[in-house]
């Protein structure tokens, strides 16, 4: 590695595969925010998202000796994360409740903040109401800004399927959030 240059993801993965925990920590620090946002956006619950992000990174650590350096670590992480999220969604039983979840940091004195919070909550609920494959496509499109081809690669499907899922998801979301 050249002096002063940050190690690439592949270099960190190679060091990780040799048991270098510091390299693994650097890798986690570099990608944790994106991973958190995706998992949190998909699962809604912070506790579930924490479990999934943790599991994703530990799986990557376990698989590090078999990792092929390709310069596409973020795509690899997304694939692992997406699979874990979808598995979790399949296992999760629906919970029907009348209770409205509290916003994270409610500031009732500020009307604007309340409206934004209410809108955010509505958006989150609308996302959660989508089938898991549609929800994942929406998040990969909007949060990660991926192309259809990249989303298809992350989910192991076709570009046509991605286009179809995205169209249906947008239709549902527009309808659910029409009054906002």
């Amino acid at each position, binding site marked *: 590695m050249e002096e002063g240059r940050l190690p690439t993801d592949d270099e960190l993965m*190679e060091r990780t595969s040799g048991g270098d*925990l510091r390299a693994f920590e650097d890798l986690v620090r570099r990608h944790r925010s994106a991973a*958190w946002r995706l998992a949190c956006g998909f699962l809604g619950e912070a506790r579930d998202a924490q479990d999934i992000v*943790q599991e994703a990174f530990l799986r990557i*650590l376990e698989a590090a*000796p078999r990792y092929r350096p390709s310069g596409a670590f973020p795509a690899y992480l997304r694939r692992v994360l997406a699979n874990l999220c979808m598995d979790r969604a399949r296992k999760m039983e629906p919970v029907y409740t009348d209770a409205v979840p509290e916003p994270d940091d409610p500031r009732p004195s500020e009307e604007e903040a309340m409206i934004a919070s209410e809108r955010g909550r509505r958006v989150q609920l609308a996302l959660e109401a989508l089938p898991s494959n549609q929800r994942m496509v929406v998040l990969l499109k909007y949060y990660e800004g991926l192309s*259809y081809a990249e989303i298809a690669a992350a989910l192991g499907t076709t570009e046509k399927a991605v286009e179809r899922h995205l169209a249906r998801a*947008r239709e549902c979301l527009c309808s659910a959030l029409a009054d906002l």
Partner: protein
Amino acid sequence: MRCRNALRFSGPYMDGELPADLHAEVERHLAGCEGCGKHLERLRALERMILEAPVHPFPDTLLPGILRGAGASLRSRGPGRTIPLRAARWAAAALLVLGIALGSLMGIAALRVRGETGAPPGPGNREETVLDFYTEAFGAAPRGSLADTFLDLNTPRESGRRDA
């Protein structure tokens, strides 16, 4: 282009996923159609709402949790499982080369000495070359097959032909 198609393509149009000619066609339609233009505006508003929706703050316990799990995982691996992929590949390549070299040696050793195969002796003959090499190296022609001789060389004996 009809509205039906324009609506169908509005999502991929917004995502920049259409071929240039189709993109231009949708763009022309949207510029002149109020209804389809509104639909596109709704899609853009939806994108803004999703991006602006608050996400739970990153928990402080996440990174320590991951590192704790990683430490435990690395400890449980043991030394045998921490070979990096590149090192493993080099080892595999070295084994392959060694295998080929040994195979070649055994192939040469399996050649019968002069007379057994019926090949005419002479310069350029492969057996002759092998035998010449052997004679030059060890001072005498081998008895029996080269394979026997190879085994002989690895068997300790009182007075070695090797020293002759």
